[in-house]
């Protein structure tokens, strides 16, 4: 994650740094994992998996804070306790794949808050979202390696 100063002058930006975000993400996620482990001894593995998945997106969103449209959108979804859903594949029946399909529209469905972004903002937000996603994935892999060793 690069902490480039934003040309739009986000108020929160100067105090955020790479190390800070990663640390916040890790501590939030680990705390959530610990809570889940304590409170789900009788629940199903699928239920626990859903909670872990939710915790993953929550720690991403909380560590990014409100300075990004994608994280604000994610936080809204999490707080409304709506199911976290991301489209997995285009339903081929509904939309036959055209050669010039608008990939920007597809991307808007994948990035939280996408539908309300113009093309330029979409690219910025996508780049930031990818950085946080890859960090979260690496974090989860690290936790897995630690637990299973």
């Amino acid at each position: 994650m690069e902490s480039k100063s934003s040309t739009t002058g986000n108020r929160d930006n100067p105090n955020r740094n790479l190390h800070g975000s990663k640390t916040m993400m890790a501590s939030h996620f680990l705390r959530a994992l610990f809570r889940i482990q304590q409170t789900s001894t009788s629940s199903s593995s699928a239920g626990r998996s859903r909670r872990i998945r939710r915790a993953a997106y929550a720690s991403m969103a909380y560590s990014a804070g409100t300075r990004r449209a994608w994280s604000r959108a994610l936080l809204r979804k999490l707080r409304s306790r709506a199911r976290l859903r991301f489209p997995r594949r285009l339903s081929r029946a509904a939309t036959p794949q055209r050669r010039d399909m608008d990939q920007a529209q597809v991307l808007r469905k994948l990035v939280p808050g996408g539908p309300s972004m113009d093309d330029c903002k979409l690219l910025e937000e996508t780049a930031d979202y990818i950085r946080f996603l890859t960090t979260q994935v690496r974090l989860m892999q690290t936790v897995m390696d630690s637990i299973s060793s």
Partner: protein
Amino acid sequence: MSGRSSAITDEEINELVSKLQSLLPESRRRRSAGRASASKLLKETCSYIKSLHREVEDLSDRLSDLMATMDSNSPQAEIIRSLLRP
């Protein structure tokens, strides 16, 4: 789409596109970074994000299975506790 019309230069778009391209792992990059392949780049980006979402889901499943074998006194729980300590 928002009605905001931003005076974005081609330069800025290209900058964002190449920034995005640099975030994709090597195996997904295509040779040319010209404007003509912007659509391909977006397609790769969508595909990459989908695979990341799947990874989060897969890792959640595996973590859940691992945690089933843990109890609060197990060494694994201790690892998590120690990772939480400052």
